[in-house]
């Protein structure tokens, strides 16, 4: 059975247009699934819904989010928070804003272990030291006592990764974890996340708009357009032969670093029109 199973999840702006249209996807234990799509396609929204951090301006209008067989949406808020905190974690997009500027690094890694999971403080601190070593941060004792502003963006992202893995979660949502980073650092961070995932056997929901990243770290992917899953494939199948016309156009639009002269290929208008028609048909009640 899959660890995370999203069934027909619909989300919309309160009294506004739909943002997710009956999205279904599964993440098996230890699987890395990519969520791709253009800006506004709703890929981050799925991660937020799973982690219970949807903004107050949106509401869930239907569907289920099954975590280890339990529908999170049916749990009372407190139980839902505890369950998510104990078995899921987030690697956020922007390491510069995701650490609390007035807390030291140490407590920001150990807080969940101590406050939510009831570890003794000494055990949690030992764990934090091990994690910093694992994400290749030298002088862990100095870093644990540092404040976020004393560390570089790359360092902070490593710390956030360490913090995400702290409680050995079953599932991590990585929300464009390299987008805010310097290109030279992006590759290292990506390698680090992939390596940690493999060692810990954590399932990963990897939100990105970069198909190159998907081909390197993911086993499966879901392609979203306008809040609808248009393709759900294994990565190898997808890159060999994408099934949906939009997927094919998206793949063709990926810039090729080996051939800069080729320039950029936009997604053709007729493909956009076709996929928009699909969305419209869905909204009208037809089967997409």
């Amino acid at each position, binding site marked *: 059975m899959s660890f995370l199973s999203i069934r027909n999840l619909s989300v919309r702006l309160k009294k506004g247009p739909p943002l997710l249209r009956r999205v279904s996807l599964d993440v098996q234990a230890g699987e890395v699934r990519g969520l791709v799509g253009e800006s506004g396609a709703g890929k981050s929204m799925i991660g937020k819904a799973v*982690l*219970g*951090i949807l903004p*107050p301006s949106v509401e869930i209008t239907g569907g289920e989010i099954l975590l280890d067989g339990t529908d999170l949406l049916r749990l009372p808020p*407190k139980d839902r*928070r*505890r369950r*998510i*905190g*104990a078995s*899921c*974690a*987030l690697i*956020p*997009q*922007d390491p510069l*804003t*995701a*650490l*609390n*500027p*007035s807390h030291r690094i140490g407590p920001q890694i150990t*807080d*969940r272990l101590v*406050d*939510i999971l009831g570890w003794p403080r000494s055990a949690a601190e030992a764990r934090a030291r091990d994690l910093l070593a694992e994400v290749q941060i030298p002088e862990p004792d100095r870093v644990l006592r540092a*404040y976020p*502003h*004393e560390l570089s963006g790359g360092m902070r992202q490593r710390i*956030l990764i360490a913090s995400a893995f702290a409680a050995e979660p079953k599932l991590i949502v990585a929300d464009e974890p390299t987008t805010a980073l310097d290109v030279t650092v992006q590759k290292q961070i990506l390698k680090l996340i992939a390596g940690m995932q493999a060692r810990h056997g954590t399932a990963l929901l990897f939100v990105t708009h970069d198909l190159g990243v998907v081909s390197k770290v993911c086993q499966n992917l879901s392609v979203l357009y306008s809040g609808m899953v248009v393709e759900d494939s294994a990565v190898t199948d997808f890159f060999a032969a994408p099934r949906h016309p939009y997927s094919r156009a998206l793949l063709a639009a990926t810039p090729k670093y080996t051939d800069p002269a080729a320039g950029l290929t936009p997604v053709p208008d007729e493909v956009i029109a076709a996929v928009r028609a699909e969305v419209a048909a869905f909204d009208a009640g037809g089967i997409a």
Partner: protein
Amino acid sequence: MALLRLLAIRLLTTLVTLAGVAVIVFFVIRVVPGNPIAMMLPPGATEDDIARLSALYGLDQPLLTQFGIWVAGVLQGDFGTSITTRQPVLDLVLGRLPATLELAIMALVMAVILGGAAALTGTRFRGGRTEGAIDVANGMALSVPDFLWGLVLILLFGVLMPVFHISGRVSPALDLPFTTDFYLFESLLRLRFDLWADIVAHMVLPALALAIPLAAIIGQLLKQSLKETMNLDYVTLARTKGYGETRVILREALRNAALPTLTLVGVQFTFLIGGTVIIERLFSYEGLGNMAIDAVINRDLPLIQGIVLLFALIFTVVNLIVDLLYAVLNPRLRHA
């Protein structure tokens, strides 16, 4: 190191500020109409009497000479003699300072507690009726000045429901074994809770009158600041860790949101100290402000000068404390 440098700079600017205040107060109170001699002599005094009394207090000298004499005295710790009471100004002023400090600090504590509670409750239940009710209460508290709150409180808790004292600092019948003028603190230290309760019962209403407008400002600003902080990434990340709303507000948001509020509280606290002048009068509370009004009515020039200088000193010290607190609360500033 940074803190020491800050202290040194602030000490220097404090001296410059005080010098400026000394010049202004000295000349302004001599330019405005009315003079102390006229207040002291009975009607029908002769020109001769006036001249003799003026010479006695040095008021017949040129202004600049008078200023020189006063400044020379101040630099040696002699602030002159009060014309009305014939006691040294320094003794008078220092004798009243503790009463005003205790009142102002009690008012500040009340304002922080009331305003903080309003902001936290409003943030916890934001977007609902509770927040609306808090906003309305804040607006009302803010639009009524402290002396009107004083009258309202006297009417409510002094007349209609007489639960607190509305006049004085302590019941006259009580025997005070105190060695300092910090009655509130000393009664606590001496574990004389009977006296402490009486002193508090005298202070509650004037302190509350001073606190209400400041509490409203703190409540409004802190709530705004908290609500903005609650949308930041690190707060969202804390939610995924399993923290509930209340803990997220207290643990993650409060400290960062408090920083901008703190600066404003410093500025507003100096206004509150200014407010003690009227409030002390209203409640016949024997502090600096009450004495200041008497001094102005009697044209007691040396006493006015002493009180104004002391108020200026208090203001600069409050600002210094705020700056230091800011540095302590904000790690980015501490290491700069």
